[in-house]
């Protein structure tokens, strides 16, 4: 197993984002034990994603265990619906060594299902939502949904 290392900078980031060290460890452990994770060999980087309670947590970490970033979102993956194999990323799906590409996934939140783009591949049950999507686009979308559903 990987020993998770959290630098002071990342600790601050986790605090800002309301993510606990336990969330990070559980997510990394899941990725390592199942290999349901993405890897970027050139940078010795890993990306694990796990649904814990009412949120999905994503952690990117070095092979050494040093966490480089972590983020979360409340929307839950419902189904991966489409594959855009032409738009590839350097990230590789660890379990099958398959280069990942853009997918479209149905995401569910407070009873609303909407589609969003992410990375993935046919052999992966996980949608790897990029950090910018999670902390900006999806975060705003969640906020608007909460507001509008309550409106």
């Amino acid at each position, binding site marked *: 197993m990987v020993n998770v290392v959290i630098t002071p900078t990342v600790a601050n980031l986790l605090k800002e984002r309301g993510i606990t060290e336990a969330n990070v460890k559980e997510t990394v452990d899941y990725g390592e034990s199942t290999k349901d994770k993405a890897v970027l060999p050139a940078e010795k980087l890993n990306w694990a994603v796990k649904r814990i309670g009412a949120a999905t947590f994503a952690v990117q970490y070095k092979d050494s265990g040093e966490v480089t970033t972590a983020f979360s979102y409340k929307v839950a993956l419902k189904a991966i619906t489409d594959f*855009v194999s032409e738009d590839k990323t350097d990230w590789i799906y660890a379990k099958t060594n398959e280069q990942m590409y853009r997918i479209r996934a149905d995401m569910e939140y407070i*009873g*609303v*299902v*909407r*589609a969003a783009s992410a990375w993935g591949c046919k052999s992966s049950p996980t949608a790897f939502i990029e950090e910018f*999507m999670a902390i*900006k686009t999806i975060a705003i979308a969640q906020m608007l949904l909460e507001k*509008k*559903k309550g409106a």
Partner: protein
Amino acid sequence: MSAPPEVFFPSINTDWHGHAAKRFAGPFVGVPFDRVDVDPIILPHAAIINGYTLKEFYMRPKLGLASVCWTNELYDLLPVTHWFYSNVWLRELGCKLEFKETLPPVVTGDRPIKNPEDADKLHIPDVSEIEKGPTFSGFVEGYDFVKQYFPNWFVPIHFTFCLTAMAAELTGVDKFMLWTLKQPKICHKLMETVMETSTNGAIALAKRYGFAMMVIGGVLANSDLLQPAKVKEFGMDYHIKHVKKAFKGGAGPQLWYHLCGNHSRDYMIWKDEFFSPFTVMHIGYMGKESFPVSEAKKVYGNMATIMSSVDTKLMYRGTPKEVYDVSKQMILEGKDSPRGFVHGCACEVPAYTPPGNIYAMVKAAREWGKY
């Protein structure tokens, strides 16, 4: 709060707006409200029916936006402050815009790119340069006004228009078209330039207002002009880069893809666009006919909110009965689309459309679009 005295409209009825806002949200929150919403994409039509001119609509952003709000209440439409034109950010790249009585702002005079070598001289304005430029100041004048006087309506929109058409304007459309075959590298350079510039524009708006809905058009990139592979190469591939970069910079989360004109041979390729949870897919025509709602629903209904396309020719030259009948059929076909449906026109409603034809769209929605 009422609009300031230089814009002569009474205040908007807040009860109406509250109701309209819930209807607007319906398709996106998976809870359809009372009926199908209607958005004929009102632009200068709003100024004209209120006694102003097309040119004033574009030259006076506050007037333009106030007239859109007022007109949307008048017709009982989707409450969104459309105010945009196609040649955005081109002044920042050396083009001259002319405001005419008959057209949205158009590029006139010499183009900055006269020969392929000129492409190397183009400078991409960064966000701070964009913020000081004429395009941004026009949007800010309008949106600051909406934020102050129509706060409930406030949705800053970055109108990307068609990146292909923008790139083509840098050198002239015919030359650009020819260069897609003879000088593809130069065309890509121009595409990259307008994509980066437009992205910085979207980021600048998002920086100022916290978010920016993105309206992205496939206008020159259509089936009448370019083969589907070129539509992808010189259109959609740049949309994807643009949206990702703009989102990284804080724009979004709303995305409205407006595929203007005929997309009979390329409408399937747009499935590979980048999607956010709030995406609207709107396709204008299948050949000369309005794009069939049933096909839009079949291909895009599970990915996005879809929008119908009443032929703009019918809006301008048809009768209320004809518009009503077409609307009824479209609404019945589209109202149960899985991710929501909005009844609209194939493109901006023509400026001189008879008001009765817009009312016919709304009447059809009231009578056949009930949830």
